[in-house]
C-alpha cells in the first residue's frame, strides 16, 4: 500500500534516507537535499535520528517528498544513501522494490538477489585520490543523487553556492566533489514535476518544531528568553541567540542551571518582559518548585517542555511522550497551570502564541508540551497562512497598567494588586504601583499572611482562572467522518501519522471500517465535557500513545470516567510511522 516506488508523487510520496557517522555532514547533506526538492516545488517532511555522541555512531535523516503536504514518516525507503556499512546493513531491507541504493566502494554488499533493487556504486576511493581530499563523501553522494534522479546539476550547484555564501573556498571544494559524484554514475529515472519554484510564496517555510516555536514566540512579542541547553529543545536557544544579535528588544541568557533559568525568567517577567524558558524533562524536574512561584505570585511565564525518553538520562536523543502526567501534576500545591500539547509543527507556532496570550492575560504559567519528534522534524508550509488560526494584538500589553487609581491603594499607599476583582498588575518603576510579589500566601498588597479567610479567597481567585481560560480555548473536534466505526484517540506528534493512516484506511471503502480521530491538545485546563461527549458517542475507541503507561488514557479516565482499554503503545524511543498506525489498526479491526 504505502511503499510506492513508481515515482507517482502526485498520488503519493518519495522517500530518501541518508545515513552515516556523526561528524560526516549528514545533517547539512539532508538539508541540501531538502532545498533541492523545495526548489522543485515539492512539499517535504523530514525527520532525523541520531545518537548522543559527537563522532562515529549511526545518524540518519529521512526526507519524504510529495506534491501534497506530508506529515509523518513511512517505513519504506525509495532511495537510500548509505554512506557507511552500518547504514547499508540497517536500512537495506526497508528499500522498496525497484528502489535505489547509493553506496561506495568502501562497503561490503550482501543483499538478497531476489530483491529488485538498483544498486549503484560510487567510486569514492578513486574520487578521493583524484581530488586529494578526504571527508567529502556527503558532497559526492549529493552529486550522484542528482544524476540518478535526472535532476539538473546546475540546481545543486546553485543551492550549494547559496548555502555557503561567505565560505567560497569550502563551496568550491564541495562542488568539485559533487561534480565527480555526478559524473561517476548514470541516470536511473527522471524525477517528475521538475519545475523550478520561481514564486517563493508557494512553499515559503521549512521549519522544525523548535524554530516554529521561536517564530511564534517572537510574533507574540517575546523579549526575554533564558535556557540551559538540553536535547531536544536546544534548537530554541540557538535560534534565539542568533536572533538577539539583530533584535535589540530581545535578551537571551544561558544560566548556570534550570533552577536559575526559570527564576531569571520570572524576575524578568515580573519586571515587564514577555519571558520564556525551555527545557526537557530533566531540566523541568529542577524547575518544579518554581512553577508554583509563578502560580502564587501570579507571574506570567511561557515554558516549553520537550519530551525525550526517560527515566534518568534515558535515551537522550530519541522521542517519547512520557512526561504528560509529570507535567500536569508538577508543582507544590494547587495553582492554575495551562498545559498545551501542539500536534503539528504548524501548531507549535500557533499554540506558542496562544500560550503567551493566556499567560499574560491570566498572569500564570503556560506550558507548551512537545516531544523530540515534533521539535526536531522539519516540514514545509506557509507561515503566513497560519496567522488566521490565532491572533491577538501583539503590541499591546494585556492587564498591565502604568497608572494606578488612588482608590486601589491601601492605607500605606501600596497597590492592591492581589485584590479579589483586580486583574491588572503594575511593573516596577510605576508610581503608586508598589506591592510585594510574594511566594508566601499574601493579602491584597502582597503582605505575608496566614489568615484563613484571605487564604480561601486567594485560592478561589487563583484557581478560578482555569474556568476563565477554558472558555477561551477552541473546542475539540473529531477529524474524519462523523459516523466512524472506530475513533482513534491520541495527542502530540502522533497526529501526522494518524491522519495519513486514517485517510488510507477510509479510502479503502470497507464497510463498517470507517475511522475518525480525536486529537487532544489542551491538557490543562482539560475540556472534559466536550471530550466526554465525543467519546461517549464513539462506537469503538482506540488509544495511541508513545509511552509505556498510557498517560493520556489515565487523564481521560480521571476527567471523564471513560476507560479506553484498546491501546497501541510504544516506548522504544521511536516514533509511529504511517505504516505502523495503518497496520496496527487493520490488525485490531480484524480481531473485532
Amino acid at each position, binding site marked *: 500500500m504505502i511503499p510506492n516506488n513508481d515515482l507517482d508523487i502526485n498520488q503519493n510520496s518519495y522517500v530518501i534516507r541518508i545515513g552515516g557517522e556523526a561528524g560526516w555532514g549528514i545533517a547539512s547533506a539532508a538539508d541540501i537535499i531538502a532545498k533541492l526538492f523545495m526548489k522543485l516545488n515539492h512539499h517535504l517532511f523530514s525527520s532525523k535520528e541520531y545518537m548522543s555522541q559527537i563522532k562515529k555512531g549511526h545518524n540518519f535523516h529521512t526526507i519524504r517528498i510529495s506534491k501534497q503536504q506530508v506529515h509523518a514518516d513511512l517505513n519504506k525507503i525509495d532511495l537510500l544513501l548509505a554512506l557507511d556499512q552500518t547504514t547499508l546493513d540497517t536500512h537495506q531491507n526497508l528499500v522498496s522494490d525497484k528502489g535505489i541504493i547509493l553506496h561506495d566502494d568502501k562497503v561490503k554488499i550482501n543483499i538478497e538477489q531476489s530483491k529488485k533493487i538498483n544498486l549503484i556504486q560510487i567510486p569514492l576511493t578513486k574520487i578521493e585520490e583524484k581530488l586529494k581530499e578526504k571527508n567529502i563523501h556527503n558532497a559526492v553522494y549529493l552529486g550522484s543523487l542528482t544524476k540518478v534522479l535526472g535532476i539538473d546539476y546546475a540546481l545543486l550547484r546553485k543551492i550549494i553556492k547559496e548555502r555557503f555564501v561567505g565560505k567560497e573556498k569550502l563551496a568550491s571544494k564541495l562542488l568539485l566533489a559533487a561534480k565527480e559524484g555526478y559524473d561517476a554514475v548514470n541516470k536511473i529515472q527522471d524525477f517528475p514535476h521538475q519545475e523550478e519554484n520561481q514564486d517563493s510564496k508557494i512553499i515559503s517555510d521549512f521549519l522544525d518544531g523548535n524554530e516554529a516555536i521561536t517564530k511564534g514566540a517572537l510574533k507574540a512579542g517575546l523579549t*526575554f528568553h533564558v535556557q540551559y541547553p538540553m536535547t531536544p529543545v536546544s534548537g530554541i536557544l540557538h535560534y534565539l541567540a542568533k536572533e538577539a544579535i539583530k533584535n535589540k528588544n530581545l535578551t537571551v541568557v544561558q544560566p548556570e542551571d534550570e533552577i*536559575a533559568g526559570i*527564576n531569571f525568567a520570572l524576575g524578568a517577567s515580573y*519586571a515587564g518582559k514577555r519571558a520564556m524558558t525551555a527545557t526537557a524533562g530533566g531540566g523541568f524536574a529542577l524547575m518544579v518548585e518554581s512553577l508554583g512561584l509563578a502560580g502564587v505570585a501570579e507571574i506570567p511565564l511561557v515554558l516549553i517542555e520537550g519530551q525525550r525518553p526517560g527515566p534518568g538520562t534515558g535515551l537522550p536523543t530519541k522521542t517519547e511522550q512520557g512526561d504528560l502526567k509529570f507535567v500536569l501534576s508538577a508543582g507544590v500545591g494547587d495553582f492554575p497551570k495551562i498545559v498545551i500539547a501542539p500536534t503539528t509543527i504548524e501548531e507549535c507556532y500557533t499554540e506558542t502564541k496562544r500560550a503567551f496570550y493566556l499567560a499574560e492575560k491570566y498572569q500564570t504559567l503556560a506550558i507548551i508540551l512537545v516531544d523530540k519528534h515534533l521539535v526536531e522534524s522539519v516540514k514545509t508550509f506557509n507561515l503566513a497562512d497560519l496567522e488566521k488560526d490565532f491572533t491577538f494584538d501583539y503590541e499591546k500589553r494585556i492587564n498591565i497598567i502604568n497608572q494606578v487609581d488612588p482608590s486601589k491603594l491601601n492605607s500605606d499607599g501600596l497597590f492592591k494588586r492581589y485584590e479579589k476583582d483586580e486583574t491588572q498588575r503594575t511593573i*516596577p*518603576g510605576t508610581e503608586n504601583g508598589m506591592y*510585594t510579589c510574594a*511566594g508566601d500566601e499574601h493579602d491584597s498588597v502582597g503582605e505575608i499572611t496566614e489568615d484563613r479567610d484571605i487564604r480561601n479567597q486567594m485560592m478561589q481567585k487563583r484557581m478560578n482562572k482555569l474556568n476563565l481560560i477554558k472558555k477561551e480555548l477552541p473546542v475539540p473536534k473529531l477529524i474524519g467522518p462523523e459516523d466512524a466505526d472506530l475513533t482513534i484517540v491520541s495527542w502530540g506528534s502522533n497526529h501526522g501519522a494518524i491522519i495519513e493512516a486514517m485517510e488510507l484506511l477510509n479510502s479503502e471503502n470497507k464497510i463498517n471500517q470507517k475511522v475518525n480521530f480525536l486529537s487532544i491538545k489542551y491538557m490543562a485546563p482539560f475540556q472534559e465535557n466536550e471530550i466526554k461527549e465525543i467519546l461517549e458517542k464513539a462506537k469503538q475507541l482506540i488509544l495511541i500513545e508513545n509511552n509505556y503507561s498510557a498517560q493520556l488514557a489515565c487523564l481521560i479516565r480521571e476527567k471523564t470516567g471513560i476507560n479506553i482499554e484498546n491501546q497501541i503503545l510504544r516506548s522504544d524511543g521511536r516514533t509511529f510511522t504511517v505504516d505502523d498506525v495503518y497496520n496496527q489498526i487493520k490488525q485490531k479491526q480484524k480481531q473485532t
Partner: protein
Amino acid sequence: MTELKTFNRTEIPNWCPGCGNFGIIAGVKKTLAELDFKPENTVLVSGVGCFAKLPYWVKVNGFVGLHGRSLPVAQGIKLANQKLNIIAFGGDGDGYGEGGNHFIHACRRNINLAYFVHNNGVFGLTTGQYSPASEKGRKSKSSPLGSTEKPVNSLALAISAGATFVARSYAGNLKEMVEIMKKAILHNGFAFVDIIQPCVTFNPQHAFDYYNEKVYYLDDKHDPKNKLQALEKSSEWEKEEKFACGIFYQE
C-alpha cells in the same frame, strides 16, 4: 534626600526582639533615603528564611521568592530593566547552601546589583539547625554531637569567583553598615556584602556582646585593589577569632 519615613509600612516586623535583622532593615531604609532613591524605582528581592521577610516591611517594590533563589530573580529583573535599583538578600542557609551555585555564577556574571547576606550562622526560621556558615563542632538539633563541617569562607569564595566588590559588615553598627551598603549599591557591578547578623534566639553564643568585641574595621593599610591581600584578609577569621569589616576587594 528622600525622607526616611517614605520607606515605612504600618506592618511591624515579627522578628524576635533583639534580632540582628532590625539593624539591617534600619540600615537598608537609611541607605535608600541617603541615596535619594525613589521607592518605585527600587526592588528588594529575597528568598526564604527569617531574613527574607525584610521586603515585606519596606515600602518599595518587593519580590519574595523561593529559598535560595533571590539571585537569579534579581538578575532577571535587572536585565529586564537597567534603570531599577536592585538589592538581593540571602541568608547563610539560603545563599550559601541552597543557592550556592547561583552565588558563584552571579559573581562571575557581574550584573549591576547589590547582594546582602544576613549571616547569623544558623538556619533561623527552621529553628536553629547548623548552617554552611556555622563553626565546626556546632551542636544543634540536626548536629547533636557537633557539626563536622568547616564553615564556608564566603568572602574568599566571592573573590575567587570573580566578584568585583566584596565586603563584610556588622548589623550592630548602623553607621558603618550604611556606608558599606551605599558603596555596594553605587558600585557598578555585582557587589556582595556578608553582614554579620546576630540571631539572639538560636545562636546566643554569638550575639551582639560577642561581636562587639571581635569586630574591627579595615583601615588604610588594607588595599582593596590588591586581590591577594584581600584573599589573605578574608581568611583571617579562620585562624584568629576576629572579624574585619569593610571593603575587602573592589575592582
